[in-house]
């Protein structure tokens, strides 16, 4: 759901990426010449689009806002695609392997209500006030200080996330294909710098739509062929139950197939979460925080050509979002029963901690067989497999949960198709980086450079600054990627930036948009103190893991629960600060809030449209499908 950030919030995938480098000596797949041609063709297309759009990107409005001429479909696909990164695909397929369909919460309740709320309730204000960015909205509503806090936090987050994304891509390409880390980092960063620097946001949006099609074209085969081999949905369910019954598990095997039934207790479901955390922490704070205030995604909708298109875009995106579990969650579940070792026996995947403990020495054998043995003892690996791993036998490598999707791709995709699948992964990574740097460029230029450094530049001057900031952003990202490579622990902190920042920002924007009484000082203090509070909670658990039980309200809570509850507390803290401060300070005159706040804004009349083209119609359809899916998989 949150692109690269999903990992930090849920799957823990990116945090453990460096561990992936330790164990595997053999890449998972070998490309044939046809695969290489498929990948090269993608790069050629990306650069063609960048060069083509350069001629149509001359003004700042065209460079930073794509000329505000995107249709609802393009804005909607770009909106959902900006979030559909490769780590998302791999991380959630791994999570489905571990936790069953509970992982689907991050696609449904963790996305759909927020997307619909953005389209129906918030877009009018973002769009009517003609802001260029989310920090820009904060400036109009709360003033310069709140904007500066948000802009600096966002700019740092974006550029570091781009670096982490770059490093993550290099690691995945190393593990899956055996590619050199430096090669992946340099090639991907040059391509991103070229096409975003040339075509600006329009180029980024075009490539996100292209990536969306490629991901479906590349990944859809895995669940189709997997279901054929598993004997359909019924066969899959039967085989999963058989497999899980042979494993020692503290939860009932059929809890892997229920979204809500076993969430009344932390201990009753494989994910260790409670429904209150899912509904209020994930479904409200994290989800609304990401989908309605993160400029990376909101920027795509701001590029729509009119208000109706801007409102329709997230609603269109919600339908595609509901379908994504088919290519992400289902392959993870299929991996549970279909993956095999080279000798034909059932293959079990393990956590990164196990593969890290079982690192092989250069000369063969294990670096520390004692640690490896202890780590494997906590898994359900059979005695035979454990013995093979300890003896360092060929073909005995362990694979991690997060490799479930690549392993399934290799299982079904021959030459050409494998290239398409790998291209989908590369496209996912690159569009993630492009999204980060294009959003960074806009915030840097409009919310930092223009108001704080050079207020009176010409339009062409700011376009030049935007292009240069993309180049500099990519260079800093490369530096961040190498920094993460050297100091793996940094990754935890970089990814925590999002979860620390999102909840206070949500509180600040919601009160600003829907409560006329919220004052300038309240917005600034609510945002700043909420960030500090959230960071404190993060550090508390980081240095005292026992504090998790306090933050998540249960000794049975797992790390997954910490993220959702921390967000919830940070939101409430910010909300209290905003309400109390507003009560103690003088509100702005209502006339100044026109275009910014509900109840103080007269929205422009929209062109009449038949019922089947109205946003409310499709929002209701989305709600019905969303409710039906949750009931079916209750």
């Amino acid at each position: 759901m949150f692109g690269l950030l999903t990992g930090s919030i849920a799957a823990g995938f990116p945090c453990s990426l460096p561990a992936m480098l330790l164990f595997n000596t053999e890449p998972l797949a070998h490309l044939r010449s046809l695969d290489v041609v498929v990948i090269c063709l993608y790069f050629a297309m990306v650069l063609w689009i960048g060069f083509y759009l350069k001629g149509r990107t001359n003004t700042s409005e065209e460079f930073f806002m794509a000329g505000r001429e995107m249709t609802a479909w393009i804005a909607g696909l770009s909106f959902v695609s900006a979030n559909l990164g490769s780590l998302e695909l791999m991380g959630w397929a791994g999570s489905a392997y571990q936790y069953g369909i509970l992982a689907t919460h991050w696609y449904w309740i963790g996305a759909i209500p927020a997307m619909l709320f953005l389209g129906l309730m918030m877009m009018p204000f973002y769009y009517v006030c003609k802001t260029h960015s989310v920090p820009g909205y904060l400036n109009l509503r709360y003033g310069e200080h709140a904007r500066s806090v948000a802009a600096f936090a966002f700019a740092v987050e974006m550029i570091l996330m781009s670096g982490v994304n770059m490093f993550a891509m290099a690691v995945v390409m190393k593990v899956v294909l055996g590619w050199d880390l430096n090669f992946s980092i340099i090639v991907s960063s040059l391509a991103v710098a070229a096409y975003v620097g040339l075509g600006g946001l329009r180029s980024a949006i075009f490539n996100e739509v292209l990536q969306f099609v490629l991901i479906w074209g590349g990944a859809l085969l895995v669940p189709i062929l997997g279901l054929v081999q598993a004997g359909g949905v019924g066969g899959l369910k039967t085989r999963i139950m058989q497999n899980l019954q042979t494993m020692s598990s503290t939860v009932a095997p059929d809890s892997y197939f229920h979204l809500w039934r076993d969430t009344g207790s932390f201990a009753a479901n494989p994910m260790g979460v409670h429904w209150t955390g899912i509904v209020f922490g994930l479904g409200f704070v994290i989800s609304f925080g990401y989908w309605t205030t993160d400029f990376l995604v909101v920027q795509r909708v701001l590029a729509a050509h009119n208000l109706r298109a801007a409102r329709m875009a997230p609603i269109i995106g919600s339908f595609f979002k509901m379908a994504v579990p088919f290519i992400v969650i289902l392959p993870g579940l299929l991996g549970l029963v279909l993956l095999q070792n080279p000798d034909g026996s059932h293959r079990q995947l393990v956590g990164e901690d196990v593969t890290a403990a079982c690192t092989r020495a250069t000369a063969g054998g294990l670096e520390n067989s004692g640690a490896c043995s202890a780590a494997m003892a906590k898994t359900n690996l059979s005695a035979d497999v454990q013995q093979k791993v300890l003896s360092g036998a060929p073909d005995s490598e362990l694979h991690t949960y997060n490799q479930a999707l690549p392993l399934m791709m290799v299982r079904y995709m021959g030459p050409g198709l494998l290239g398409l699948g790998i291209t989908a992964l590369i496209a996912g990574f690159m569009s993630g980086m492009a999204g980060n740097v294009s959003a960074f460029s806009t915030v840097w230029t409009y919310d930092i450079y223009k108001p704080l450094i050079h207020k009176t530049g010409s339009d062409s001057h700011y376009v030049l600054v935007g292009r240069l900031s993309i180049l500099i952003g990519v260079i800093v990202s490369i530096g961040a990627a190498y920094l993460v490579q050297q100091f793996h622990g940094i990754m935890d902190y970089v990814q925590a930036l999002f979860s620390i920042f999102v909840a206070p920002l949500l509180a600040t924007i919601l009160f600003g948009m829907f409560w006329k009484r919220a004052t300038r000082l309240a917005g600034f203090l609510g945002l700043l103190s909420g960030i500090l509070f959230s960071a404190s909670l993060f550090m508390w658990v980081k240095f005292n893991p026992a504090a998790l039980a306090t933050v998540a309200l249960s000794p049975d809570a797992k790390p997954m629960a910490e993220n959702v509850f921390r967000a919830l507390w940070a939101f409430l803290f910010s909300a209290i600060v905003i309400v109390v401060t507003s009560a103690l300070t003088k509100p702005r005159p209502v006339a100044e809030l026109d275009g910014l706040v509900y109840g103080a804004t007269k929205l422009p009349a929209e062109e009449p449209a038949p019922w089947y083209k109205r946003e409310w119609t499709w929002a209701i359809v989305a709600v019905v499908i969303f409710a039906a899916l949750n009931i079916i998989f209750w």
Partner: protein
Amino acid sequence: MRGSGIPIWFFIGVLLTAYGAMIFGYGVFEWVNVAHFGGQYPAGVQLTQLHTPVWWGGLLTALGVLYVVKFRPGRIK
């Protein structure tokens, strides 16, 4: 995108057509030469008897051609 430029759907059509044609072509080659390769080919890949590259490549090609024709430059006003 509105306006007179090349729509993104055209770029997508071009890429899908190229990918589909290559994958379809390889699939036909693999099918015709299956006896030459003997048994399961490519090694380790499952369900090769379904000839996935042929129908998936054909599907991508058809979709790509449709997009190229429908969104070719100059057609959209």
